[in-house]
């Protein structure tokens, strides 16, 4: 599929979603909005982790950065667009700082550093509680949506509007020279360097791009929840984001979309499945266990993720260039 086709698909997909928000009941619309917000984050993360091979366990913290920036700017009286811009700028800067450190690190060391970033959020909000109001967080005073639009529709449109921009920009970025450099650095740093690719520069840039996406996603979460607090960005969020992109299909935007859907749908499904069972200790715990089993089974049965499953396989010989060239070298490096 050519780049133009892909962008057309993205636009068509988002258009369909927006149509859905007109017919869905409010709660489904809200879930769609959540998917859109997650999609911004997973799309950025899959570019970083899937295409550039950098594992980040700290994207929850970057989302928190975006969310708090939006909350503080909105509460300072800024219009929503300016608040989004502020969220974008601040997370880009923070992403640049983390990215500079990250570019020197590999594999689990990078994971360790980003993990420490993820757990630092509540510490920062309570150390500077004058600004961030500790565990309780801030509420976000939003203007009511224009005209007869319901709150949920307005939230969904914002989320999917942002997702559209993020996806199209990412697609343009990874479809071009930058995308090839990302993969070259991931597959073989020495070869990439010999070919004239700035390894460190590419890695930092990848981190910055993905941080900016996470910031936008986080800002959207602040809008959806109309509040921000450290409890909403726990370590498990960062881990779930990684799980989502791997299960969805690492390295492709379609995989990121699947991941975003799963983040919303799987817990809800697990809850629905177990709802009929009435026993105290099972409540909450059974969905958790089911969720875990699903993860393991999917990973063992379909290691390429959902996006790699294709019922209409046209030819057994035609494999996606990604699985052929992409995944194996990752292993090579990890063993080197």
């Amino acid at each position: 599929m050519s780049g133009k086709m892909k962008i057309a698909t993205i636009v068509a997909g988002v258009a369909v979603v927006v149509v859905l928000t007109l017919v869905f009941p409010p709660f489904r619309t809200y879930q769609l909005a959540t998917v859109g917000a997650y999609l911004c984050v997973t799309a950025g993360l899959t570019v970083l982790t899937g295409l550039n091979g950098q594992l980040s366990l700290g994207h929850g913290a970057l989302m928190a950065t975006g969310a708090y920036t939006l909350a503080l700017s909105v509460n300072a009286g800024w219009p929503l667009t300016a608040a989004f811009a502020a969220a974008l700028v601040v997370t880009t800067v923070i992403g640049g700082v983390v990215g500079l450190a990250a570019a020197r690190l590999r594999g689990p060391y990078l994971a360790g550093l980003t993990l420490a970033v993820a757990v630092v959020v509540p510490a920062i909000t309570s150390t500077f509680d004058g600004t961030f109001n500790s565990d309780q967080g801030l509420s976000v005073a939003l203007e009511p949506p224009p005209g007869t639009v319901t709150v949920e529709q307005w939230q969904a449109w914002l989320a999917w509007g942002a997702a559209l921009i993020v996806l199209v920009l990412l697609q343009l970025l990874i479809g071009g020279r930058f995308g090839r450099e990302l993969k070259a650095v991931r597959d073989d740093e020495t070869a990439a360097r010999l070919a004239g690719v700035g390894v460190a520069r590419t890695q930092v840039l990848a981190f910055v791009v993905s941080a900016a996406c996470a910031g936008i996603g986080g800002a959207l979460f602040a809008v959806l929840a109309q509040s921000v607090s450290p409890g909403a960005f726990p370590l498990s969020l960062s881990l779930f984001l990684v799980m989502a992109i791997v299960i969805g299909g690492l390295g492709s935007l379609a995989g990121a979309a699947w991941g975003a859907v799963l983040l919303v749908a799987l817990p809800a499904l697990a809850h629905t499945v177990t709802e009929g069972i009435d026993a105290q200790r099972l409540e909450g715990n059974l969905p958790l266990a089911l969720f875990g089993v699903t993860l393991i089974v999917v990973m063992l049965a379909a290691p390429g993720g959902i996006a790699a499953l294709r019922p209409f396989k046209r030819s057994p010989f035609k494999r996606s260039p990604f699985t052929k060239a992409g995944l194996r070298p990752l292993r090579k490096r990890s063993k080197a």
Partner: protein
Amino acid sequence: MKRLWSVLTVIALAAATTACSESGGGSGSSTPGVTDTEILIGTHMPLTGPAAAGYSKIAPASKAYFDYVNANGGVHGRKITYKIMDDTYNPATTQQVVRELVLQDKVFAVLNGLGTPTHTGVLDFLKTNRVPDLFVASGSRSWNQPDKYPGTFGFNVDYTVEGKILATHVKETQAGKKVCFLGQDDDFGKDSLAGIEKILGPVAAKQSYVTSNPNVGPQMGALKQAGCQVVMLATVPGFTALSIGTAAKIGFKPQFVVSQVGADLGTLTKSLGAAAPLTEGLISANYLPLATDPANPWIQLFTKVNTQYNAGAELDNNAVYGMSVAYLFVQSLQSAGKDLTRDGLIAAVEKGGFQGPGLVPVRFAKGDHSGYAGEQLSKVEGGKQIYFGTPYTTDDDAGAVTAYTTAPVAPPQNGIPAAS
């Protein structure tokens, strides 16, 4: 075409989940969640995760009491269905589950949603959708803002009121001693300390902890160094146990005075294990009868309900709390009358005048949405937590701490509040 195919499946999946889940909702009545035979309400609670300890028992106990009421004919012929959603104490999940309750299940009201950071996030949403938000399970003062949130009501004694009552006791009985404070690093700790300092003035030393770091060794070391003789704790049960245990470990044995939140003796005994005797002499306060007091008629009622409808779970103070919430809610429904509407329910709660298991009255009135008005002091003696003295009431401001001498009422014969 991979991408297009993916997108289409995603959409089909989303549409399918929507199609098969649009069966709920009320019918035959204009009020959401209310039919001629049923009232649907919901709550959010941590049932899993680190915050679930203790709290996960509250909602099932409430549910057990509703089942008891339902088995005896319900309220105005309507049975109460209580939908419990797990939010793992994560405010983002609370957002999701409360929206699901309100927008999809179309609950009549949200009852006893637990936690300050979690529930703060849904106040505006509940207000916009005009959902009654009754008896929030936390002692924050945020629930008492009738002008801003006309549908939200508290339940717990607020932390400042409690701080004032505990501090008054310390002032009377421990005069001249060095009083120090260890509190959770959020509103709970801050409001508590504010109440304490209103009575005692500045404390000699204060320390704080965060729930994500279960080691209070450094803090207790500092309090020992400061020569504290009385340590007032605004801690959750796990950290109360940890503080007492750690203090003993470094040979530090002050008088502990503990917030009701973290003083459930059953929980403390279990956490401390063999070190449980350390709780001897611990001072606390509460506003509900203690589960360990079998002579109390309310405990007798709750024990009966618990045995019949709570799957053999132990009746501890968390269960007593859950049932007291349910009792107050049934009282409110009775008072709201047969023609049940959301505005009618809120008006009925604002009318107040409820008498139930509490040792002090609930304060509900037109301009006051805060919960219980005060507490009675308790002390651990011979491995049992027992009340002493009279209950006290006060406000969260400069008001005096006064004794409340009206004797508590006994439960009605059949254990269900009568229609008024």
